Structures are given as C-alpha cells and as structure tokens.
C-alpha cells in the first residue's frame, strides 16, 4: 500500500490534539472520581507510550512494563518514607533507578528473541514482584506502603500527569523524526540487515529498552504520589497485559495509538465495571480480534479510512 507522499500527515499533530482535548476536559468534568479515572488513564498512557517505543518501533516485546512502574513507585516511596527526601527528588530517583535497571536488563535480553525475550522479561517481572511482596519488613508487602502526596488539589495531579505525558510525546517525536527513528524501525524489521548496514544494533536496542523503562518508572513514581499508596499489585503480569492490550488496540508503531488505546481501554473498563465486571473479557477479545485481523489497531484503521499518515 503506497504511503501518501505529501504531508497529508496529521501524524505528529494527533497525539497533541488528543492531549489538548484532555487538557480542556476539566472544564466539563469536575467530579473528583472521574478526574481520578482520567489520571489513571494517563498513568497507563505513559507506560503504553514507553512500551510502544520498545515493541511497536523496535520490535522487542517485553512483558515487564508494569513491573518497572512498580519499581519506580517503590523507589520513590521507600526513599520518601525512609530518608524523608522530597517527593520530587524521589520521582527523579525513580526515573534514574528504572533507567539503570532497564539498561542492565536490556543488555541481558539483547541476544534473545521472541519467546525467549518474553519469558525472560516475564520472569524478571515476577521475581521483582515477589521480592517486593516478600520483603515485608521493608515494604510492608501486600499491605502496601504509604507514601506522601504532592499536592492538595486533584486537579494539580491531573496537569502534572498531562505535562509528563506531553513531555514524553515531544521526546518520542524528536527521537523518531531523527535518524534514530529509522534505526529503530530497521532493527524491528530485520536486525541482521540493520547491523550489516552499519546500524549500531546493540546501542539502539539498549537505548529503546532504557527509555521505555524510564518512562514506566516515571509513571509509577507519579502514580505512587497520587494514590499515596504503593503495592506490589502495580507489577502484576495482568497489569502488563493491560498495557499490551491498550497498545495493540490503539495501534502499535504510531504515536497516537498508545494514547488513544490507554484512554479508551481504561475509560471503557470503568464503564463496564459498573455494567458487570466484563471489562477484561471484552478487552482480551478485542486484543485477539485486533491482533488477528487489524494489526495496525485503531490508528491503522483510521489511516486506512483516509485520515492520512499517523506515524
């Protein structure tokens, strides 16, 4: 299918249009509960954006995104609780910690492909969760750790998350528009060919891994201070599954896909929760259908309907 040459490309603008709409929503929505739902959607949107960079653009399907969010949340949580540092320092530390751990894991899984990569990241995620859950003396295990908040107003959190999300989108856009975007996609399409054309595969795979885990860590840290409680449940495999759902449904390999997917899936799940708890059944089914028939996700469907290039 020929890609339209001229810039019928709403592409880069879409994610920001969506975020713009989200920015204006509080004018219409003032209910605290629903603002909270939107904040959590943004939490997932952050993780999804990071995972999309890793899987959609670079082809590494890690099963550990939620685990890194959990690690980020606990990094800032433990620091604040035991060292009394400001939550802002905690958040910065969380990003640093998850970046470092992500870099290490990324190097480890670099030689692995497909199922082995999935299994290793799955194992890592489970080990991390079990270690945190079992270290009761330090983390209070499944009871969760109480963490200081940042603001009084829920609305302040709303715009903090939005700001982080926007910043990440800008970063991704810059990255993908630069030659690195070409390298990542080349690695996704054919790693051997990429290397033989001079692409530094080792560097870029690690970089993508690190970036995605750092973003997840940021999301987790922000969420920790928002909910003021961090628990090992953040890192459950089903949470990672939810992230994957969101990106597949929204559209992998596009910038707006993970955002749209996150908001859609999470808001829908809230609605369905009231209807009778069938949300996960619906999403799982949706993912299967999308993966099987509409690999490009909603973003891809929109593109085919003539809305131009969305990457």
């Amino acid at each position: 299918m020929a890609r339209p040459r001229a810039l019928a490309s709403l592409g880069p603008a879409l994610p920001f249009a969506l975020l713009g709409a989200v920015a204006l929503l509080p004018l219409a929505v003032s209910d605290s509960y629903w603002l909270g739902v939107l904040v959590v959607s943004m939490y997932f949107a952050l993780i999804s954006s990071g995972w999309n960079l890793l899987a959609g653009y670079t082809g590494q399907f890690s099963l550990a995104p939620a685990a890194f969010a959990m690690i980020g949340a606990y990094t800032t949580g433990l620091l604040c609780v035991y060292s009394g540092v400001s939550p802002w320092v905690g958040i910065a530390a969380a990003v640093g910690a998850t970046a470092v751990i992500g870099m290490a894991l990324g190097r480890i899984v670099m030689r692995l492909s497909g199922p082995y990569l999935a299994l290793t990241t799955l194992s890592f995620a489970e080990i991390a969760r079990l270690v945190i859950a079992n270290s009761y003396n330090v983390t209070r295990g499944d009871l969760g750790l109480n963490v200081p908040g940042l603001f009084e107003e829920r609305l302040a959190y709303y715009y903090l998350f939005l700001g982080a999300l926007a910043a990440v989108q800008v970063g991704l856009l810059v990255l993908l528009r630069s030659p690195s975007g070409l390298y990542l996609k080349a690695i996704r399409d054919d790693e051997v060919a990429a290397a033989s054309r001079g692409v530094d595969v080792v560097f870029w795979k690690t970089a993508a891994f690190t970036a995605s885990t750092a973003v997840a860590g940021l999301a987790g840290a922000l969420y920790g201070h928002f909910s003021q409680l961090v628990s090992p449940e953040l890192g459950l495999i089903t949470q990672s599954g939810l992230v994957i759902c969101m990106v597949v449904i929204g559209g992998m390999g596009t910038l707006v896909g993970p955002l749209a997917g996150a908001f859609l899936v999470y808001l829908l799940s809230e609605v369905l929760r009231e209807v009778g708890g069938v949300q996960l059944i619906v999403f799982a089914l949706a993912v299967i259908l999308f993966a099987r028939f509409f690999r490009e996700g909603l973003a891809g469907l929109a593109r085919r309907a003539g809305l131009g290039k969305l990457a």
Partner: protein
Amino acid sequence: MSCLAIHGVVKSFGGLRAVAGVSLDVDDGELVGLVGPNGSGKTTLLSIVSGQESPDAGRVLLDGRPIQGLSPTRIARAGLARMFQLTRLFRRMSALENLLTAGRALGLARPQAAARAAELLEELGLSRVADLDAGHLSGGQQKLLEFGCCFMVPPRLALLDEPFAAVHPTMKEIMARTIRRRHAQGQAFLVVSHDMPIVAELCVRTVCMNAGAVIADGPTRAVLGDRKVIEAYLGGEAA
C-alpha cells in the same frame, strides 16, 4: 594492493566442517567470482567475512586491518557491504527509507543521504516505487533495492551473495550493468553466483570452492574449464 585478505579460515558447526582452511585475496578494484556447488561453504565464508559468524581459526583482513570476530556493525562501518542470499530488507519501511537508513547509519548527513538515495533509485529504475513499502516490491525489485543499499556509501568491498538468483532477465541486466560500471570506477567485488554465463562475462578472476576448501583460483575461463571444478559440480568423473 590487497583489499580483502582471508588467511586459513576454519569454521565448523557441530561435526560439520563448513570451511576447512580457506585462503583467498581480493585486490583493490578486483571483480572476483566465487563459485562452487551447494554446501561448499561459500555463504559461510561470506558470513565470516561480514561478521555474522566468527571463525574457529584464521584471519580476515580488510585493508590490512583484522576484522575477524568483529560485530557486523563495525565491519560494515569499516567499509564492507554485503548482499544476502535471501533478500534482507526493512520490509515495513519504504524503499527510500531503506536507502536512507543505510546512508545515515554509515555517516551521511541528511541532505547528502537524500541526494544519494534519489540517484540510486534513478540508477536502479526504482524511482517509481520509492515510497512503497519494501515488502510490497517484486522479488527482483527487492534484490535491486538491497543492492542499492550497499552503495549509499561506496564500500571498500562489496560482497554479493547470489545477486542473480531467481531474478528477471531485465533486472539481471540492470544489476550486471551497474556492477560493471562501478567496477570500471574502481569498486572491488566478491560475487557468489551459480549463474556461470554472467560470472564468465563479469569476472576476470574466479575462485571455486568445494566441501569447504578452495579447489581452483585463477582466470575465469581456466577455472570454469578446470576438471576438478566440473567434477565438483557434477559429483563425479567428468566425461
């Protein structure tokens, strides 16, 4: 002046000796053919030179610098371009993007890369399909594209693994023409092929391998008429 020097390279896979002590040189600007029956170790040898495999023993020197065991990325940056037997392209990227990736990865700046890519597309008759996803091109077009990617930055040596296999005669002619032209400009090539007529036409010198070893190395005419070479292909006493 030696461009590529292979000394005593050995490679085994489990019990199978794929390359059993091969030594071979390609001089600056030479166009050398590499022939031999299937399973003779040609592709393995190429993989060792381009870095996908590392040899059990022996050395490979590019412009006098040892490259055996280095990563394919570093070898590519040292000036070795490789075309694969089974076409390897970035299928979900456009033909243009495939070329740009190769160019940028090897250090070209954006405008230069764009200009080079446009030239190559023109030269190879692919301008029409520049924006098509590489995966949607025909087999012959894909080979030409992969070929083009090797030349975004003129390499010290171009390794072509069966570039003429299963290709439309027109495409074959375009590729042969391009090889000839670049050779005239001083480009060194090592071309693996089963297409004897084209090897005879293009290559002044040919090397023949069988069962992991070099059994003939010299002027193409002589090699292709060599009894040992004929026996290797026919698997027995030649008439």
